């Protein structure tokens, strides 16, 4: 297989968000920097975090909101769009989290 073909396959594959996040350099903390009080999410109509979190940290499983902080890109979107103030948001400490090199 030529390198062009292998490259093609790589880019053409519909990426799962995790595949994409794996391209980055990480040093994820074992302590979460964002805490979500999901009890406030049950009657939230829009749940804008689900579509707008660029890292797919908010997912719906059986219409229940699940949050995982591990792939967080530290953008601040969820903090801004959450209509229920369910999110206690901060940056990671000690240089943890994502380490950008080419952005």
């Amino acid at each position, binding site marked *: 297989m030529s*390198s*062009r073909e292998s*490259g*093609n396959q*790589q*880019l*053409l594959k*519909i*990426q799962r*968000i995790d595949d*994409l*996040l794996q*391209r*980055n350099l990480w*040093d994820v903390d074992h302590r979460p920097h964002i805490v979500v009080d999901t009890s406030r999410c049950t009657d939230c109509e*829009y749940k*804008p975090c*689900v*579509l*707008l*979190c*660029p*890292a*797919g940290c908010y997912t719906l499983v059986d219409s229940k909101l699940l949050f995982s902080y591990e792939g967080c*890109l*530290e*953008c*601040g*979107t969820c*903090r*801004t*769009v959450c209509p229920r103030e369910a999110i206690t948001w*901060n*940056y*990671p*400490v*000690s*240089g943890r989290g*994502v*380490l*950008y*090199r*080419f*952005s």
Partner: protein
Amino acid sequence: MATKFDAIVVGAGPAGATAAYKLAEAGIKTLLVERGRGRGSKQVFGGRIYVTPVREVFPDVEKTAPIHRWVKREKISILHNSRILSLEYESPEKHSFTTYLTEFTSWIVDKAINAGAVYVDEVRVDSIVEEDGRITGIEAGGERIEASIVIDAEGVNRLLLEKLGLAERLSPEEVALGAKEVIKVGADKINERFGLEEDSGLAWLLVGEPTDYLPGGAFIYTNRDSVSIGVVVYLATAVKKAREEIYRLVEKLRLHPQLRQYWEDGDIIEYSAHLTIESGRRFMPRKLATSGLIVVGDAAGLLLNTGYTFRGVDYAVYSGYLAAEAAKKAFNLGDFSEETLRENYEKKLLGSFIAKDLRNHTGVEQIMHEVEFFEKYPVVAIDTARKLFELGYETPRIQEALRSSLKTHHINLLSFLYKMFKMVRKL
């Protein structure tokens, strides 16, 4: 143990690093604190920096900065229904360059360190300390550090200013989300595919399909051996109208049948996201300095988004420079009062090209809010072009093509012309 510096700068982005450099250069004992590891590791932008204001602060920018390519071609395109309508502009002049902000910021942080600033990374500042109505230092991890003056360069997420009551809690109306992929393609392939010379680059803005017709835009910048592609959506509309995940939009851009030829054999080397300010004028805090504190860069609302370009990094650098100049004056006078700092910083900034730019473009920001502008007009434009260029038997006049496209999309010709007129005046 109380540690004391003359000046503390919070956040080593382009704004903070520049301020620290200029302060240290003047012999002021300066601490630059950054939450990220190393230099520039939390930095994200679209792709290009305008050089003129940067050159005033760093005369060696052309010789020593990590410049990837000089933007000699500008392109603006509307994408819809497998059609692309574009405006292209070429110039031999070096007015702006592409780079990675991570690299550019490192370049400034190095300068600050060489000038004698103390750089501490991996430290998240938890609060800016206020005592008796005066800023006296910072607190991080339970430790306090004092200074005569603090410069807040924390960027768009103003956790510290919010705590101080100097900024409101961020609302979706004020910001846009950008998500970006960097794809390594190789320098030769970039030159060949985009038709570029060795060190010349392309800045390409796109609307319509790439944002799923949401207010915002997509971008493509050519770096030395990679391309940066991404999507920016205004949160206010995206909250209600987004139909798929933002990373899906970036992926669609990457896989777009008419675009992917440029990078399809490349490798994605990074995926990043960051908020950006949507209206600098509205985002600006009520005051840009208080007793012992100066606010610079994004935290001060210094960002211009005209729809066809972004300016934030050059503004950040320039505001960092103005802040350092004001601080130097304050040290000479031994006076760090709100009055003196506002007189020497805020007034200068509000009289500078930055504030003038922001005032000048408020009209455009209003347009950028009109959903119609992104939802319907790209479609009408492409439809009209299709009627003009894709001829069968009949050859319509421009007016006829436009009229019938407007009709198809239920837009009144008069209101369309009025809006266009209004827009041209505001641009």
